[in-house]
C-alpha cells in the first residue's frame, strides 16, 4: 500500500484483498494522495466550491480487464462503492458526495491496436484522442475529436456521445461508430459484446447474436458512470486525405500544417438566417468537412496569443467591440477536404463560393493551418475571458429549433441582472454547428461568470453569484431548451435528471430498473446519475424555479418534446 494506511472507510481485509490484485505500489489510502482526486475536472468550480465534493477513501490503478473484474467483485463482496475514471475530464463520474468510495484510476490501461485495413481501432480507457490521431492520421484515418480536447479519453467520450467538429461529415454519435465492446458489469462479470461473440479478435461490428445491449454503456445520457466499466472498445475510423499533418509552432500557438487537399474558409454573413440557408444548401450539395458557426467572442479568444497575459489581451480587444459590430457579423468557419483528390477540394470550394455568394457571404482571412481540430481541440480556451466557462445546456434538434433556442438565450442575455453577473456576449447568438450533413444541429448555451467571484475562498467572492449562476443554468437555460423542443444533451451534468425526466417520457424509471437489475448491491457509482440532482437540492434549491417546473409539466402533458411543429 502506497503511503499511509487508513482503514476508516474501507476495512483492512478489503484493502488487502484489493492490494493482492494490483500489487502494493498501485493502491493507496493515503489522505494526501487521495485528496488529489477531489472534484477536479469539467465544471469543477460548481461542484467543488459548493462544498459537496469528497476525496475517495482509496485509489487503485489496475492494468488489465481481469484485474478490474476482480476489483469489482471485491467491491461487491465488501459493499464498497467504486467509480472509474479515465482521462478525468469530468467531475461527475462518481459518487463524490461520499467518503467511502474506491476511485478506480484507469490510466495504466493505455494500449491501442489499430486495424488499418478494416479502418477501426481497439482502445483501452486511458488512450486519448491526440494519441489515437497521432497513430491514425499518418495512415489517412481519423476519428472525431471532441471539444474537451486532445487529452480526452476516446473510450469515455464515446460513451458520452462523442460529439465534435468532424461529426458533420462522419456519422454523428459515437454510439453508432463503435464496434465490439468489452465490459465489466457492476457485479464484476466480463462481457464481450457485438461481433466479439465470435471470438476475442472479432472487433469489427457493433451487432452480434442476441440483443444489442450497447445502450447500457451510455454515459451522460445514461447512468453517468454507474453501470460497470467499459474496458476495451473498438471504434470506426474514417478516411481523410493523404499526407501527414506535421506540427509546427510554439506551445501557445502550435498547429499542424494542412495538406494540399485541405482548406479553411471563413465567411461573414449579416444575418443568422443567411447562415442557416448556407448550411442547408451545403448539406444538400454534400460538401464540407467541418462546418462551424463561430461566435465573435471565440475569435477574440483565438487571437489573444502572446507573452502578455491572455486575459489582458482578450479584454483589450473584446472591450472595444461594439454591440452592432458583434451582432451583425455572423461568421461561418468551414474546412473543406478533398478526400479523394485535389479536384474534389477545388470542386467543393467552387460550390461553396456559389452558395455563400447567393446569401451575401463575405470572405474573411483564414490562416491555412490547423490549430484545433485534428489534435488539439481545446475548450480550455473558453476559460480565458473570466477563468470559468459555464456550460448551461446543450440542444440537439433541427436547425430551426436550435436557432430558436439561441435567439431566446440571446434575448435573456440582455437582461440587466444577467449582464451584471456575466460577460456580455454583445448580442451574438450561441455556438452551433451542423451534424450528419445537416440532418441534426447542435448548440451549446454558455455563460461566463468570473471564477474568482464564484469561489467562497477568494477575496473577490460575490455573495449570491453561485446561486444566480445555478438558477440561470438550471431554470433559465432548462426552460428555453425544454420549450423550444431541443433534446437536452447534458442531462445529469447541468440539469437535474429527475426534474426533467417527465419531459422525456420518465426515462429515469428505466434507468432505475436497469440499475437495480445489473447492480443489486448498488456499488457501481451509487447515486448516479442523480448526483447533480442532489447537489442542486442540497446546495442550490433556489435554482429550480416555479416557471421551470411549469414548463416541464406542460411538455410532459404533450405533445411530446414540446415542439408541435417538429
Amino acid at each position, binding site marked *: 500500500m502506497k*503511503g*499511509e494506511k487508513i482503514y476508516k472507510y474501507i476495512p483492512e481485509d478489503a484493502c488487502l484483498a484489493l492490494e493482492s490484485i494490483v500489487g502494493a505500489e498501485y493502491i*493507496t489510502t493515503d*489522505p*494526501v*494522495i487521495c*485528496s*488529489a*482526486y477531489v*472534484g*477536479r*475536472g*469539467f465544471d469543477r*468550480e460548481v461542484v467543488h466550491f459548493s462544498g459537496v465534493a469528497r476525496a475517495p477513501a482509496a485509489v487503485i490503478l489496475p492494468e488489465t480487464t481481469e484485474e478490474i473484474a476482480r476489483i469489482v467483485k471485491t467491491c461487491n463482496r465488501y459493499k464498497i462503492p467504486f467509480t472509474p475514471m479515465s482521462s478525468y*475530464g469530468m467531475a461527475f463520474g462518481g459518487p463524490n458526495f461520499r467518503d467511502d468510495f474506491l476511485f478506480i*484510476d484507469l490510466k495504466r490501461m*493505455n494500449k491501442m491496436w489499430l486495424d488499418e485495413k478494416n479502418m477501426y481501432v481497439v482502445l483501452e480507457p486511458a*488512450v*486519448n484522442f*491526440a*494519441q489515437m490521431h*497521432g*497513430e491514425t492520421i499518418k495512415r489517412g484515418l481519423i476519428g472525431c475529436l471532441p471539444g*474537451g*480536447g*486532445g*487529452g480526452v479519453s476516446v473510450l469515455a467520450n464515446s460513451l458520452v456521445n462523442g460529439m465534435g467538429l468532424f461529426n458533420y461529415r462522419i456519422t454523428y454519435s459515437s454510439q453508432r461508430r463503435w464496434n465490439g465492446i468489452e465490459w465489466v458489469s457492476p457485479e464484476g462479470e466480463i462481457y464481450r459484446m457485438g461481433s466479439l461473440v465470435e471470438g476475442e479478435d472479432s472487433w469489427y461490428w457493433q451487432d452480434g447474436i442476441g440483443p444489442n445491449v450497447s445502450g447500457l454503456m451510455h454515459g451522460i445520457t445514461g447512468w453517468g458512470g454507474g453501470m460497470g466499466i467499459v474496458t476495451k472498445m473498438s471504434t470506426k475510423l474514417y478516411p481523410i486525405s493523404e499526407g501527414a499533418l506535421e*506540427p509546427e509552432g*510554439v*506551445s*501557445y500557438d*502550435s*498547429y499542424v500544417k494542412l495538406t494540399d487537399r485541405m482548406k479553411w474558409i471563413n465567411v461573414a454573413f449579416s444575418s443568422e438566417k443567411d447562415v442557416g440557408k448556407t448550411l442547408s444548401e451545403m448539406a444538400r450539395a454534400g460538401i464540407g468537412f467541418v462546418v462551424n458557426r463561430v461566435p465573435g467572442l471565440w475569435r477574440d479568444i483565438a487571437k489573444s496569443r502572446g*507573452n*502578455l*497575459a*491572455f*486575459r*489582458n489581451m482578450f479584454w483589450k480587444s473584446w472591450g472595444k467591440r461594439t454591440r452592432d459590430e458583434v451582432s451583425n457579423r455572423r461568421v461561418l468557419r468551414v474546412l473543406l477536404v478533398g478526400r479523394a483528390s485535389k479536384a474534389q477540394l477545388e470542386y467543393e470550394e467552387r460550390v461553396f463560393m456559389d452558395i455563400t455568394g447567393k446569401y451575401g457571404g463575405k470572405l474573411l482571412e483564414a490562416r491555412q493551418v490547423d*490549430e484545433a481540430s485534428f*489534435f*488539439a481541440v*481545446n475548450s*480550455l480556451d473558453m*476559460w*480565458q*475571458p*473570466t*477563468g470559468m466557462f459555464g456550460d448551461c445546456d446543450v440542444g440537439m434538434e433541427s436547425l430551426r429549433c436550435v436557432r430558436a433556442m439561441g435567439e431566446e438565450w440571446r434575448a435573456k442575455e440582455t437582461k440587466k441582472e444577467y449582464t451584471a453577473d456575466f*460577460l456580455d456576449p454583445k448580442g451574438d447568438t450561441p455556438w452551433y454547428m451542423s451534424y450528419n450533413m445537416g440532418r441534426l444541429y447542435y448548440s451549446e448555451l454558455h455563460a461566463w461568470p*468570473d*471564477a*474568482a*467571484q464564484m*469561489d467562497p*475562498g*477568494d*477575496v*473577490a467572492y*460575490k455573495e449570491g453569484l453561485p446561486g444566480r449562476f445555478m438558477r440561470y443554468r438550471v431554470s433559465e437555460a432548462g426552460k428555453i431548451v425544454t420549450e423550444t423542443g431541443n433534446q437536452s444533451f447534458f442531462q445529469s451534468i447541468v440539469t437535474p435528471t429527475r426534474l426533467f425526466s417527465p419531459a422525456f417520457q420518465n426515462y429515469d424509471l428505466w434507468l432505475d430498473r436497469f440499475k437495480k437489475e445489473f447492480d443489486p448491491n448498488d456499488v457501481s457509482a451509487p447515486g448516479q446519475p442523480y448526483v447533480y440532482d442532489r447537489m442542486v437540492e442540497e446546495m442550490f434549491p433556489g435554482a429550480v424555479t416555479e416557471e421551470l417546473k411549469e414548463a416541464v409539466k406542460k411538455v410532459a402533458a404533450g405533445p411530446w418534446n414540446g415542439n408541435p411543429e417538429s
Partner: protein
Amino acid sequence: MADEKLELGLNLEDYRYEARHYPAQGHARWIDYNYIRGVDFSWRCPPWQYEGFDAYGVAGKCSIIDRLLSGDIDYSSPTLRELVFKDPMCGSCDVAGKRDLDFELQLMLEALRVRVVEKGNGPMPEHLPVTQNIERTGNRFGKPQSERNNWLPRGIKPAAKASVLYFVGCRAAFSDTKISQSTARVLAAADVPFMLMNNEPCCGHFIYTTGQLNKAKQIAADNLKLIRQTEAKTVVFSCAECYKTVKVDYPKMLGFATEELGFEVKHITELADAWIKEGKLKIVNPIDLKITYHDPCNLGRLSEPWQPWQGLRKQWGIFDPPRTLRRGHDGIYEPPRAILRAIPGVKLVEMIRHHENAFCDAHDAGVKEAFPQFATWSGSERLREAAQTGAEAIVSCCPGCKEAFLTASRGNLQVYDITEILAKSTA
C-alpha cells in the same frame, strides 16, 4: 468588491487562484497535443508518469495545495514530502498551464517547496550532504576549493582581467572536466579572452531548488557581489543549471529584473552560434554523426528572463498593470541546433518531445540524490526516445543532463555535451 493584491514571487498564498481554478482536465499530463504522435512519448511530466497517482502531477498538487492553504491537511505528512520532492521542477507543466491560460504552475510548485521546508518537512535527508558540502566547501562535492581550477588544460591561460567571465560551475570544475576544457578551447578558438573567478563559489542551484530559500538568498547575494566585483560585462556559462540560477533565480529571490543584474548572462551556445555566423569561430573539422539534441529544462523553458510583477487581479481576472508571462518558448532552443547544423557531417534529428515539450531526465532539484531509481528511469525513458530517432548520439548542454544519460545509458547511444562536439569541430 475587493481586488486581490498579488506579488507572484515565492509566497504560496499568491497561488491560491492557481490551486483552485486550474481546470486540470489532464492537459498538463501531455505534451502539446499537436505534437503527440501516439501513446509512446506523449507524457510531459516524469513523476506523474512514473508514479501513476495524480498526486504526483500538477493537477493533483493543485488540489493538495488548496487543501494545505485551507488547513484541511497539514504539512507534516511524509507522503506530502515525498511527492513535493519527487519532482525535478522541470517547468513542463508550466508550459501546459500557459498554453491556453495564464497559470503560474512552476512558481506555485517552487513556492510549495519553500513552504514545506519552512514548515520543517523538508528538504529530504538525502539533500543534506550536498547542502553541507556547499556550505562547508563552496562546492557540491565537498572537495577543496584549491582544486577548483585544476581542470584548466595546458596551453590555455585565462586572463587576469577580461570583459568575459567564464562561470565554470561545480560539475564542470570537478567531475566532468571535459566540458570546462572544451568550453575553454572554444573560447580560445574564437579568440575571446576570458577570466575565471578567484575561488568561484557554487551558484546555489541545488540549495534553491530543494526549497532552502533563506540559504539560497544569501548565496545569491554573496555571489552577485563577487561577480560584480570582477567588472565582467558578460558572464558565460557551460552549465544550464548555473546559467538559469544566475539569470532567473537570483533576480527572483532578490526582487529585481534580470536586466538589472549589471552584466550580460550568456550560455556558451548563444555566443558560439553568433561567433560561427560572424565567422569569428571557424568550423574546421567535420563530424560524421547522427545526433539528436536534448533540450535541458534550465536552458530551455525555465531560462526566460525574470521580470517581477506586483499588482491587482481585478474583475474577470484582469491583471492591473498588465502582466507579461514567461511561457517557456523563449528559452535557448535554436543556438545549440544551429551550431550542430553548422558542423559538416552532423545530421540532426528531433525527438518527438523537443523544445518546450522536451521530456526531463529528472536529475535536477535533488531528485537524483533522494530518488535515484526514479531519476534513472526518467533518463532511460529519454534515451529510449532518442534511440527511436535512429541517432547515434544524444547531445545536450548541461553537465547534469550528460550525467543523467551516462547513468541511464546501456551503451547504445554516445553521450556528449555540445561543448565537446564544438571543441572537436573547431580544434
